C-alpha cells in the first residue's frame, strides 16, 4: 500500500491524540483511507453503515434505539423528476426513498451502494458494475441491471433535459449526431441481471463519484413524473405527504405495494419517519432554536455563535465549496498577467479562514483543488509580497496603483462580501483600490460568466479533476475566466487518466502549479458547512454537499 495521506488521516490522528477516537477505530479509518481506492471500493461491501457512523459517537457505545421521527428544517421543494432535480434539497427529500449505485460519505470517500462493486479497465474507458443482489423495490420487484440501464439511458435522452448529461462519465456515453447529443449505440451493456458495463468514449476517472451526483438516483422503470405521485424506490422510507413550501413527510416502508413485508437491503434502520418542514435557510437555525426541528439543512457562518449558544451539537463538514474571485483573462486590465499576479501577490490567503470562518474551513491556494479532494497536492504556501506586487503593477503600467471593481452576488451567503472586504483591505497596501459592487443573487447569476471581475461560488465536487475540467478548460460552458492554456489542459488530461490516487496526486502538482501561476483568481478559502443536531439525535454527520444520509440515524430518549 502506498503512502497516501488523505486529509482525514490527519484529522483522525488528531482525534486519536485528543482521545476522541479508539485505536481500533483509528486503524480502521486509516486503513480505509490508506488503501488505493480501487481496492477500497472492492472491499466496501460490508462497510456501509458502520463507517458512516461518526466514530466519536459510535465510541460512546450506546445501543441504537428504534423509533421516533426526525424533524428536519429545510426548504421543501417539489419532487417532479429525480433525474432533472436541480436543488440538493429536492434530492434530500428522495434520498431515503431512492438510492444510488455509489455513495460518497461525509468523509468524501465514495463507496458502493446499489452496486456491490465496480472495476474500471486500465484505460479507464470501460467500467463494470456489479449490481447488488437482493435489493427490493417498494413494489416487491428485485433490482436488476436492466433497471439501471433504463435509468442511464433515460439520463442520456436530450428531451428529458437531465443535468446528468453534463457529468463527464455520462457525457462519455454519448455522441454528437446531427448537432444533437445522443446515447451511443452499445455504450451500455447489460451483461447479466447483476452486471452492467459502461463503454466510454474517453477515459473518465470519476464514474463512481458521478453516480452519486444528486440527479442520479435509480428509479423504477415504471416511473412517471411527478415522483411525489407514485414514489417507488429501494430505500427504507417512502413519501407520505408533500406540500411544497410547507412540509415533506417520509415514513418507514414496512410492506411492499403488493402486500409482502418489505425488507431493506441495507440492514437495520432506526427512525420511524423523517419530516422535512419548510424553513428558509435564514430561519432554519431559528426554527431549531425554537424546538420546531431536530436538525437542519444548513446554517451560515454568521449564525455559528448563535448555534453555539443553543443546546445541540454543531456538525461541521470540510468541503471543496469555495469562492473564486476570478478575473476574465481576456478583459482589460486583467488580460495582463502582471496585473493579476500583482493582485494575487497582494493577498494573504491564510487569514480568510480565520476571519471569515472563525478557523473552520481550509485555506485555498488559488488553484481550486481542496484538501478534501483525494488527489490534493499540497503546494508550498504562497507568501504575501507587497513590494513584488507593487513592482509588477508598475511594470504593467500602473505605477500609481489601479482601481478595480468586483461584482458580488452573495449567492451563497453574506460571507462572499466579507471575503471581498478583507481583500479590499489587503489590496489597499498594494495600491489597488477595490470597489465592491454588491448585487442581488439573481442578478449576479445573469452576469457571473460575463463580468471581468466577479466573486463566483463553486460547489463541492468529490474530485479535484472534476472541478478543473468543468471550469478551466477552454471552451467548456462554465469557463468563467476565459482561461485557455494547452499546457494546463495537457497536464490535467494526464492526471485524469490516472486511476491511482497517489500517482494522480503527483501529477496534480503540475496542474495546480500552472493554474496557480496563471493567477486567474484569488481563491483563498474553502468553506465548511455547518448543521446542528439536537442532543437526542445520534449518528448524524454533516455532509460536504449537504446530502442527507439518515439511514443509520437514531433518536435517544
Amino acid at each position, binding site marked *: 500500500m502506498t503512502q497516501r495521506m488523505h486529509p482525514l488521516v490527519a484529522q483522525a490522528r488528531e482525534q486519536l491524540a485528543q482521545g476522541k477516537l479508539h485505536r481500533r477505530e483509528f486503524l480502521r479509518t486509516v486503513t480505509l483511507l490508506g488503501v488505493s481506492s480501487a481496492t477500497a471500493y472492492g472491499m466496501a461491501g460490508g462497510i456501509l453503515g458502520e463507517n458512516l457512523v461518526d466514530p466519536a459517537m459510535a465510541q460512546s457505545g450506546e445501543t441504537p434505539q428504534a423509533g421516533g421521527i426526525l424533524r428536519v428544517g429545510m426548504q421543501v421543494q417539489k419532487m417532479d423528476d429525480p433525474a432533472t432535480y436541480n436543488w440538493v434539497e429536492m434530492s434530500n427529500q428522495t434520498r431515503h426513498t431512492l438510492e444510488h449505485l455509489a455513495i460518497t460519505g461525509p468523509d468524501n470517500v465514495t463507496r458502493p451502494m446499489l452496486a456491490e462493486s465496480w472495476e474500471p479497465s486500465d484505460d479507464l474507458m470501460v467500467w463494470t458494475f456489479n449490481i447488488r443482489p437482493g435489493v427490493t423495490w417498494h413494489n416487491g420487484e428485485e433490482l436488476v441491471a436492466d433497471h439501471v440501464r433504463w435509468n442511464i439511458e433515460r439520463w442520456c435522452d436530450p428531451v428529458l433535459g437531465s443535468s446528468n448529461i453534463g457529468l463527464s462519465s455520462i457525457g462519455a456515453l454519448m455522441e454528437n449526431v446531427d448537432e444533437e447529443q445522443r446515447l451511443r449505440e452499445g455504450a451500455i451493456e447489460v451483461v447479466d441481471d447483476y452486471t452492467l458495463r459502461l463503454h466510454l468514449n474517453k477515459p473518465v476517472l470519476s464514474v463512481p463519484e458521478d453516480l452519486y451526483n444528486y440527479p442520479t438516483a435509480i428509479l423504477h422503470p415504471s416511473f412517471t413524473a411527478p415522483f411525489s405521485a407514485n414514489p417507488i424506490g429501494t430505500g427504507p422510507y417512502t413519501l407520505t405527504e408533500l406540500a411544497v413550501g410547507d412540509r415533506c413527510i417520509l415514513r418507514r416502508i414496512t410492506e411492499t405495494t403488493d402486500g409482502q413485508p418489505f425488507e431493506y437491503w441495507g440492514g437495520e434502520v432506526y427512525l420511524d419517519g423523517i419530516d422535512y418542514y419548510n424553513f428558509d435557510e*435564514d*430561519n432554519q*437555525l*431559528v426554527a431549531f*432554536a*425554537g424546538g420546531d426541528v431536530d436538525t437542519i439543512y444548513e446554517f451560515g457562518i*454568521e*449564525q455559528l*455563535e*448563535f448555534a453555539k*449558544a*443553543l443546546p445541540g451539537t454543531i456538525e461541521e463538514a470540510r468541503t471543496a465549496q469555495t469562492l473564486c474571485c476570478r478575473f476574465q483573462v481576456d478583459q482589460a486590465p486583467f488580460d495582463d498577467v502582471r496585473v493579476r499576479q500583482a493582485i494575487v501577490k497582494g493577498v494573504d490567503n491564510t487569514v480568510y479562514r480565520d*476571519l471569515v470562518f*472563525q478557523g473552520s474551513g481550509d485555506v485555498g491556494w488559488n488553484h481550486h483543488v481542496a484538501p478534501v479532494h483525494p488527489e490534493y497536492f499540497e503546494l508550498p504556501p504562497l507568501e504575501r509580497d507587497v513590494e513584488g506586487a507593487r513592482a509588477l503593477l508598475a511594470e504593467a503600467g500602473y505605477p500609481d496603483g489601479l482601481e478595480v471593481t468586483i461584482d458580488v452576488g452573495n449567492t451563497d451567503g*453574506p460571507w462572499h*462580501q*466579507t471575503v471581498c*472586504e478583507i481583500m479590499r483591505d489587503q489590496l489597499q497596501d498594494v495600491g489597488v483600490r477595490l470597489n465592491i459592487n*454588491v448585487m*442581488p443573487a439573481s*442578478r449576479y447569476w445573469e452576469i457571473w460568466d460575463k463580468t471581468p471581475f466577479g466573486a463566483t461560488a463553486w460547489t463541492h465536487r468529490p474530485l479535484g479533476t472534476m472541478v478543473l475540467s468543468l471550469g478551466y478548460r477552454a471552451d467548456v460552458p462554465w469557463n468563467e475566466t476565459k482561461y485557455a492554456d494547452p499546457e494546463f489542459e495537457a497536464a490535467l488530461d494526464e492526471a485524469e487518466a490516472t486511476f491511482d490516487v497517489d500517482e494522480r496526486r503527483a501529477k496534480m502538482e503540475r496542474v495546480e502549479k500552472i493554474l496557480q501561476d496563471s493567477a486567474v483568481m484569488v481563491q483563498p478559502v474553502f468553506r465548511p458547512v455547518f448543521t446542528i443536531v439536537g442532543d437526542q439525535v445520534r449518528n448524524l454527520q454533516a455532509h460536504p454537499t449537504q446530502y442527507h444520509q439518515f439511514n443509520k440515524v437514531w433518536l435517544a430518549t
Partner: protein
Amino acid sequence: MATVTVDVPERGWLERLESTRAVIALILLMWVPLNVYVMFGRSFGDFADYLLVPAVPATALLYFLTLRAFRESRIALIGATLVFFWLFMAVSAPFLPLVDPNEPIAPFTPPLTEARDHFFLLGADFKGRDMLSRAIWGCQRVLVWGVTATLVAYVIGTMFGLLAGYLAGWWDEVISFIANVFLSFPVMVLFIVILNYLGASGFNIVIAVTFASAPAIMRIVRGLTLDIKTRDYVFAAQTRGEAPLWIMLVELLPNVRGPLIVDACLRLGYTTVAITTLTFLGLGLQPPDPDWGLMIRESAKTALLWKFSYMLLVPALSVSSLILGFNLLADGLREISLKD
C-alpha cells in the same frame, strides 16, 4: 415679489435667525451635505467626511431654534428632541469617537464588556461589529432615504392634488382614478411589487414610497384645494385673470402647507417604518453599511436568544424612538396649529 424695505424694525440676531430665509438656509446647510454624503459619499473618497462639517453646527442651531419655536407644546419639544438627536447623530457620525461600523472585532460580545481592546457599550453583533457604532451610523440611511422619499412623494402628490382639485373635471377624474388604483393596493403589497420589479436600493425605495404615498397625499391636497378654491381670495385672483398655474402655486399652495406639514411628520414616521420593514424583508437597503432594518434582519436569524437579544433591541428601540419623535412632533404641531 419686489423686495420691500418698509420700516423694517431693527432686529436682533436671534430674530434674524428666525426669519424664514435663515431657517431654510440652515435646513439646506444641514440636509444637502447629509444627502450628498449618504447618496454619493463614496465618490468623494476621503474628502467625504468634510462634507458634513457645516452640517453639524447647522443642526445644533436648528435644534435651538426649534426649541424656541415649539416652546408652547411640550409634546412637540419631546418629539423634536428625539428627531434632532438622530439628526445630530447622522451629521456628526464621522466625527464621533466610534469604530468603523463594518469592522468585525469580537462577535457576540455582550453589552458593557470589553473584548479585544474595545469596550462595547451596546455589545457586538454576530460579525463582531460594534452595535453602538452601527446604531448611530444606521440612522443616516434611514433619515436620508426616508426624508427624500417623503419629500418626493409630497412634491408629486401635491402637484397632482392641486391639479385635480383646482382644475377638476377630467383632470380630477383621471388623476383620482389612478390614485384609487394605487390606494386599492395594501401598501406593503405595492412596496413588494414595485421593489421586486425595480430591485432593492435607496433610490428605488424613493420611487416605491412615491407610488405608495403620493396618491394619499394627492387626496389630502385635493380635498384642501377643493376647500380653499372657494375662498374669496382665489376668486379675487381669478377675477384678475391670473393663470391657473399661478393660482395653484401662489394662492393655493402656501395655504395647503399648514395641514400638510403635520401630515408630513406622520408620513415621515410611516416611511421610516416602511424602509425598516422593507429592509427587514430583504427588499430595502442592502448590506453591508449599517441600517436598523438590516440589523434587525441579520440579528433575527443569528441571535434569537435571550442572551443575544440586545442585538434586536438596539435597532428596534432606535427606530421606535425616531418614529416616536416624528409622531410626537406631528401631535405637537397639530396642537400648536390649533392654538393659533
